[in-house]
C-alpha cells in the first residue's frame, strides 16, 4: 500500500460522502439521538471529552500492549521450546491446545478473582488472547523450512545454534509477523472485554458508562478511537515488518488471511 494522494483521495471522499449521507438520513427520518446520533454530535462529543478520552485510551493501550508484549516474549519462547523439545511437545503442548479451545475472554471474571481489579487482570486477558496466534504462527515458521536449506546447513557443518539463528529464525519471521498482527488486534479486544467485566478506567469501562447514560454519540466515538488504536498498532507492525522482512513475497498473502 502506497500512501500517495491518489490512494488517499478515493477512500477519503467516500468516507466524507458516507458521513454526509448519515447526517442527512438521521435528520430526514428523525431517528432519536440515543439510537443513532448524527456525525456532528460525535464530533462535539469528541472535542468536549478529548482529555478524558486521552486518559482512558492510554490505560487501554497499556493493557493491550502489555498483554501483547508478554504474549510475544512467552509465545516465541514457548514456540522455540516446542519445536526443539520433545518433552515440552508431549506435556505442555496438549495443555495449551485445550486452553486454546476455550473462549479466553470467559476467563475475565476469574482473572479478577485471581489477580485483582487493576491493570494486571486486564493484561492477563490481553495476554491470553494474543498468545495463541503468536505460538501457532511461530511454530509453523520454525518448522516449515525447505529441506534443501537444512541439507545445505549439513553440508556446511552448521551447528544447531547456527541452524536456528541463520535458517529457522529468519524462516519464521514472515509467519511470526502474521501472528503478531492478529495478536495485536486481539489483545486490544481482550483488554476491552476485561474492562467490561470489572474496571473503573479504560475505554471498555468508558463505553459501558456511555451506554448507561444513553450517550450513544460518546459510545460511538470510543469505538472509533478503538479502531484507530488497533489500526495504529497494525501500521507500526507493518512498517517494522517491511524493514525486517524485505525478502518475503509471501508476507502479502498471509496479510490477506488476517
Amino acid at each position, binding site marked *: 500500500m502506497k500512501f500517495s494522494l491518489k490512494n488517499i483521495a478515493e477512500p477519503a471522499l467516500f468516507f466524507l460522502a458516507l458521513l454526509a449521507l448519515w447526517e442527512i438520513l438521521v435528520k430526514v427520518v428523525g431517528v432519536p439521538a440515543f439510537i443513532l446520533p448524527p456525525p456532528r454530535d460525535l464530533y462535539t462529543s469528541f472535542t468536549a471529552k478529548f482529555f478524558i478520552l486521552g486518559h482512558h485510551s492510554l490505560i487501554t493501550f497499556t493493557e493491550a500492549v502489555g498483554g501483547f508484549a508478554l504474549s510475544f516474549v512467552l509465545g516465541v519462547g514457548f514456540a522455540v521450546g516446542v519445536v526443539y523439545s520433545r518433552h515440552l511437545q508431549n506435556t505442555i503442548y496438549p495443555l495449551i491446545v485445550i486452553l486454546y479451545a476455550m473462549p479466553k475472554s470467559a476467563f475475565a471474571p476469574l482473572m479478577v478473582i485471581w489477580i485483582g481489579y487493576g491493570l494486571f487482570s486486564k493484561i492477563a486477558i490481553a495476554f491470553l488472547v494474543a498468545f495463541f496466534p503468536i505460538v501457532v504462527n511461530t511454530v509453523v515458521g520454525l518448522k516449515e523450512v*525447505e529441506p*534443501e*536449506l537444512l*541439507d*545445505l546447513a*549439513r*553440508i*556446511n*557443518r*552448521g551447528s544447531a545454534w547456527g541452524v536456528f539463528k541463520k*535458517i529457522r529464525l*529468519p*524462516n519464521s*519471521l514472515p509467519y511470526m509477523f502474521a501472528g503478531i498482527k492478529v495478536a495485536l488486534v486481539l489483545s486490544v479486544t481482550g483488554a476491552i472485554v476485561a474492562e467490561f467485566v470489572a474496571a473503573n478506567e479504560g475505554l471498555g469501562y468508558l463505553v459501558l458508562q456511555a451506554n448507561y447514560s444513553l450517550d450513544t454519540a460518546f459510545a460511538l466515538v470510543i469505538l472509533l478511537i478503538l479502531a484507530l488504536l488497533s489500526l495504529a498498532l497494525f501500521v507500526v507492525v507493518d512498517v517494522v515488518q517491511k524493514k525486517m*522482512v*524485505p*525478502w*518475503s*513475497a509471501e508476507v502479502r498473502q498471509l496479510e490477506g488471511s488476517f
Partner: protein
Amino acid sequence: MEIRVKSQLGGDGPEKIVVEKLVQSFDALTVIDRISLKVAEGEFLAIVGPSGCGKSTLLRVLAGLVKPTAGRVRIDGKDVNGPNRRHSLVFQEHALFPWRTVFQNVALGLEIERQSHEQIRQRVTELLALVGLDQFPGYYPHQLSGGMRQRAALARVLAVDPDVLLLDEPFGALDAMTRLTLQDELLRIFLNSGKTVILVTHDVEEALFLADRVIIMSTVPGRIREVIPVTEKRPRDRGSANLAGLKRTVLGILGLEPVIGNVRVPETNFSI
C-alpha cells in the same frame, strides 16, 4: 596404491569416487538397485535417465545427505558417512535462502570459512560476473527468474571451490542461449580446475557435449543400463556428426526415437 581407471579424456587420474553395489530404498520402494560405478579424478560424468529413476537420490547419496540402504560409497578412498563441503551439491530446486540477497547467498560458504570481508567481496563479485549476475547482487531470490536462481546456486557452490561438483540439472530452467553459455562456462571451469564433476541432466546433447562418459539409467528401480564413452576431443563441436550419432544411440537406449515428425533431430543441432 594408485589404481588407474580406464577412462576417457580428462579422466585418467586415480579413482576419485567408487560406488559399490549401492542400494537405496525408501520404505518398500527400491529406488537404486545395486549400482556400481567408478569415477576417475578429473573426470566429467553425466547421468541421464527417465524421470523418477533415482538420479537425484544417487547424487544425494554421493553428497552424504542420505545414508545408503546397502552398499558402499567411497570418495578419495574414504567411506562417505556424512555431508562434506569438498563434495558439494547443486540442488535441482536451487535452494537459495529467501532472506539473503544474491550476494549473500553466494557468500554463504565463504562466511562460514570466516574469510575477510574484502576477500568475500572480491570472490563473490568475480563469481557473479562469471554466471552473469553482476547486475543483481542486491536482489532477493523472489525477485529473480528461475534461470537466474539456478545461476546464483551454481555460483554459490563454485564459491567454496569443492573438488567434487555434484550438479542436479543445474541448467534445467534456463533458456537455450543461457544454457549454452553456462555449459561453456562449466566446461571452462572443469578444464581449468581439474575438478571431478557428476552432472545429472535431461538434456542428452548437454551430456554429450560436456562429459567423458554418459551413464544411462533405467526406469525405477534405477540401474545402470549403459555407459557411453565420449572420446571426442574438447572443445567439441556441438554439431559434429560423431555427437549426432552418439545422440541417436543414447536416445535409442532411452527408448526415444530420435525422429520428430520427419525431421531427424541430429540435423537440427545448432552450434555456436
